[in-house]
């Protein structure tokens, strides 16, 4: 099966499929977010656009942003300014290529795919910083500086928390990690699995800048933060990139903690994966739409005082447990 995907033509065809599927999946996740948020806030959410329940809303948003005027501020640094959106979207989308959709069905089945995925996850933050710094706007600059503080602190416990499943599965290959969960999902391991997932969830909130930790684009303080100066299709890329990044992290959590495509046979593997990913996404939405935002010093204190020691201890316990048997 993976032989088919070698060579230039295969890769090209595959990447269009991945981007096509991933982009529509991301677009309809924006619809899902507005519907879940509306339900939590005792209102209806998108309804009139695409009459029954606003199913045409993402299409309308994308089309409108396509025909919008594309502004590059005169004072902005043109190279970095236009590179920003790409640097945010491309790593997030490439992440989708690594997630194994079925037994041996991963589009890119690389022995170190796990490491590659986490490395890509931090690349999006580079794009956000480039955009924030290049748009020559004080709000964007402040949010870019905040991003550096957040990324530097929240990457560390995330990587440590992700080491646990790799340790338990004994390999850095995502398909092998999923196979190792055939007996018991890694979330099932008593202390080790749950704590690792909890830490990973908090770091995913910080990376995808969702509410309790969305210090990065705190609208009430820094207007629209790094994408202040972006309009039209460049903003659409940012908007999709942010969702793609969060969904990629949810997909990773689903594969690594909740046994990716494993599940009773009556549904194919990839349906299980997307189902688990969407459930995790709704969990993040639930947290996002009910909690207030933390101050940046509180968020960073929580990270260094609590998350880092907890993930180190967790790693210690997991390592000693693996060495014992």
């Amino acid at each position, binding site marked *: 099966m993976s032989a088919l995907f070698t060579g230039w033509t295969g890769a090209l065809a595959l990447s269009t499929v991945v981007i096509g599927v991933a982009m529509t999946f991301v677009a309809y996740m924006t619809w899902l977010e*507005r519907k879940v948020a*509306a339900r939590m*806030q*005792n*209102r*209806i*959410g*998108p*309804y*009139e*656009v*695409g*009459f029954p329940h*606003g199913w*045409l*809303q993402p*299409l*309308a*948003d*994308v*089309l*409108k942003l396509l*025909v*919008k*005027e*594309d*502004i590059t501020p005169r004072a902005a640094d043109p190279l970095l300014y236009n590179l920003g959106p790409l640097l945010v979207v491309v790593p997030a989308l490439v992440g989708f290529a690594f997630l194994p959709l079925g037994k041996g069905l991963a589009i890119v089945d690389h022995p170190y795919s796990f490491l590659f995925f986490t490395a890509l996850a931090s690349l999006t933050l580079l794009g956000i910083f480039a955009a924030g710094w290049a748009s020559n706007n004080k709000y964007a600059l402040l949010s870019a500086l905040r991003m550096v503080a957040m990324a530097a602190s929240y990457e560390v416990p995330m990587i440590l928390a992700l080491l646990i499943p790799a340790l338990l599965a004994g390999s850095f290959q995502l398909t092998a990690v999923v196979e190792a969960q055939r007996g018991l999902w890694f979330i099932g391991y008593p202390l080790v699995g749950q704590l690792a997932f909890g830490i990973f969830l908090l770091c995913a909130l910080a990376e995808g800048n969702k509410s309790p930790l969305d210090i990065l684009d705190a*609208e009430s303080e820094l*207007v*629209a933060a790094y*994408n*202040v*100066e*972006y*309009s*039209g299709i460049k*903003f659409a890329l940012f908007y999709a990139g942010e969702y793609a990044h969060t969904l990629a992290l949810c997909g990773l959590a689903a594969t690594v903690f909740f046994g990716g495509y494993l599940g009773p046979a009556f549904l194919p593997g990839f349906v299980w994966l997307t189902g688990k990913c969407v459930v995790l996404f709704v969990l993040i939405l639930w947290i996002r739409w009910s909690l207030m935002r933390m101050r940046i010093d509180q968020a960073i204190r929580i990270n260094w005082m609590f998350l880092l020691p907890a993930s180190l201890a967790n790693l210690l316990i997991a390592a000693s447990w693996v060495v014992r048997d």
Partner: protein
Amino acid sequence: MAGETLPIVGQTTAPAGGGTLEDIAEEVVRFPGGGIALLRTDALFHWAQKSSMWPLTFGLACCAIEMMATFAGRYDLDRFGMILRPTPRQSDLMIIAGTVTIKMAPRIRTLYDQMAHPKWVISMGSCANSGDHYRNVYSVVPGVDHVIPVDIYVAGCPPTPEALLEGVFALQRKVMEGNRAGA
């Protein structure tokens, strides 16, 4: 208990200006298992602009409180695809809700210029329409059309959320026809 639902006001059936495919398409061919809609790209883009109109968070006075009530749960402009965007770059509708004063007018002008084309303006409330009872006062601009071109005037002091909803539908119909003052 506290959560009994309030009567929902405003269109819950498809508004006249489009929503179902039949309204915006020139011709729709239906066959078992699906259908093809033939429409001019112009109508498609106008439909997209109409149904995802992102207003700028920009309230001045009492009308801003009524605008906030319109965005809140009961009248819920999110039903028509309107999310509040804080920056002028990403918004395509500016709702002038309140009295325009001489100190604020240049700010409104800069904000309007920063917005990306195509953009529209709804002047909400009689203070924005004509200056209302402050019309002859030294510090008030009698009507926001002295500052920026306006597409839709919503009367009232303050206009009730239903009146603002009607203004939004009128703007949607205007966008569907494709002409706009603001350009």
